[in-house]
């Protein structure tokens, strides 16, 4: 394993929620937990794949022979065989970047990503490159939901085709996903996004995470973000958003093509930890996070966050 892979670290969570020490085991209705059981959820994620279906050519200056969805697919298959509770996510900018896009538009990408078993994706700025009709065309081939909470498509041909949030279940774990897209004005041609409304990501994020964690009782809340990892200037990013959230456990990021060795761990508005991860671009990397859920209830109540990463 070259580059930035790191050894498997196992860390126990010490932090409790709601002054959890006061809550003793006896108060939990035991039927909610299958006794003595831990459940592992493997989250694999990509971003900014930009139609890099094949690995870079052997003559490529920087990434010779690396990356590509055809290789990524075998990694996914391997992980899925190790743990069927696998959640496969993408944080946008699937489109644009190789001739596959010029010849086959976004259609091929969404066919392949469906084949690979993606569970959810979001809309990046490059999805708009050939306008809304080409997004519509590609979505016909998607067998997984596109989630965007702050792009309002209701006055466009994509109305009802993009979900504001999505809830799914893996191995008894209930996962809530919402999506955040970057400001379109100045980045995407107006003609290309048409009547799509960009809404301020922060209030939308706070609304969505609360809805998912509190109203829908999701065990894990994930934000698919195409806002970007961080900026020098005052522009909303994953790093500026995370400390303002309360119920989001993981931000799967994109846009800035950031390679991370491991997720960044920040404190949210309640002082609990939140993960931000991003996996470069061009399927040169995959983010991998395993959440091990405790179904026994023999421990104190833990926040769905990590320690000592």
């Amino acid at each position, binding site marked *: 394993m070259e580059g930035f892979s790191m050894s498997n670290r196992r860390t126990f969570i010490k932090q409790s929620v709601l002054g959890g020490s006061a809550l003793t085991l006896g108060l939990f209705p035991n039927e909610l937990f299958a006794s003595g059981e831990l459940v592992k959820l493997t989250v694999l994620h990509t971003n900014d794949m930009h139609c890099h*279906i094949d690995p870079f050519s052997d*003559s490529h*200056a920087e990434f010779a022979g690396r990356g590509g969805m055809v290789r990524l697919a075998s*990694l996914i298959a391997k992980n899925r065989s190790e743990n069927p509770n696998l959640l496969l996510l993408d944080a946008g900018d699937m489109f644009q970047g190789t001739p596959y896009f*010029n010849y086959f538009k976004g259609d091929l990408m969404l066919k392949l990503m469906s084949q*690979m078993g993606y569970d959810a994706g979001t809309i990046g700025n490059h999805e708009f490159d050939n306008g809304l009709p080409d997004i519509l065309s590609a979505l016909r081939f998607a067998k997984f939901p596109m989630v965007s909470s702050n792009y309002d498509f209701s006055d466009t041909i994509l109305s009802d085709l993009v979900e504001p949030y999505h809830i799914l279940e893996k191995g008894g774990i209930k996962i809530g996903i919402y999506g955040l897209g970057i400001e379109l004005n100045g980045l995407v041609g107006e003609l290309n996004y048409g009547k799509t409304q960009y809404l301020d990501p922060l209030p939308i994020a706070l609304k969505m995470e609360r809805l998912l964690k509190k109203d829908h009782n999701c065990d894990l809340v994930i934000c698919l973000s195409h806002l970007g990892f961080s900026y020098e200037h005052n522009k909303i990013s994953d790093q500026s958003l995370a400390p303002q959230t309360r119920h989001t456990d993981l931000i799967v990021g994109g846009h800035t093509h950031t390679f991370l060795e*491991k997720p960044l761990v920040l404190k949210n508005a309640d002082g609990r930890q939140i993960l931000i991860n991003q996996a470069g671009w061009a399927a040169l990397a995959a983010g991998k996070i395993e959440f091990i859920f405790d*179904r026994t209830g023999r421990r104190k109540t833990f926040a769905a966050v*990590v320690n000592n990463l």
Partner: protein
Amino acid sequence: MRRLFFSFVVILLLFSCNRHLFVREVNTQNISIDSNAGQLDSLLESWVKPYRDSIEHDMNTLVAISATPLVKDKPESKLTNLVSDILLSTATSYCLEQNLNIQPDIAYVNYGGLRASIPQGEITVQHVFELMPFENEIVLIKISGETFILMADKIAIRGGEGVAGMKLGIRNGKVSSLITGGKAIEQKTLYWLVTNDYIANGGDQMNMFSNPAERINTGLKIRDVLIQNLSNRYKRDGIIDIKEDGRIFNEQ
């Protein structure tokens, strides 16, 4: 009553906790996708193959041979200069062919829009696709000298970008000298700028271009133009040898 209410709140609080499963442990291991990460997936490969085969012939077509690698850099570079020059000369020919009686003055190519480098040696259609994956077309806009200067300010802040038909000096992120056609820029004079539709629509924070005095959409796809121009040039003059010429320079 107060006690009852308190108990109710506590029960609610407990109930809402109980309904979630909690994470006990988190392992992380971001993975580099290289040959160590696994072989090519045979199933996905079988899906992709017919698509790949259908475009491979086009992609492998030779366009030209370059004496050097063409890599983008700031304040100027062979690559940014080459693309900007091709935009300016193509737009000039276009205006002649269309009898528009317009002499384009300058070209601007956004740095971020050039998506890959061109290697030394054989340039194939694939390379040009990687350089210019977008379906952008050449657009001419008529701008004031004032707008021209705003553009130069932006280029200076960014430390350089792709330009043709002008000479720009930068000192500490500011314009220190600016000439086009051998003359300083006059605020009230109108200039014809060649760029792509993305920029002409105000993209990449170039909002100074949003309301030009006139605009001509040529319908010429930039990628096609690059392939055509390089191919013609190679057939005519042989190996392409691009030089930097100091059109954007840093002043001390």
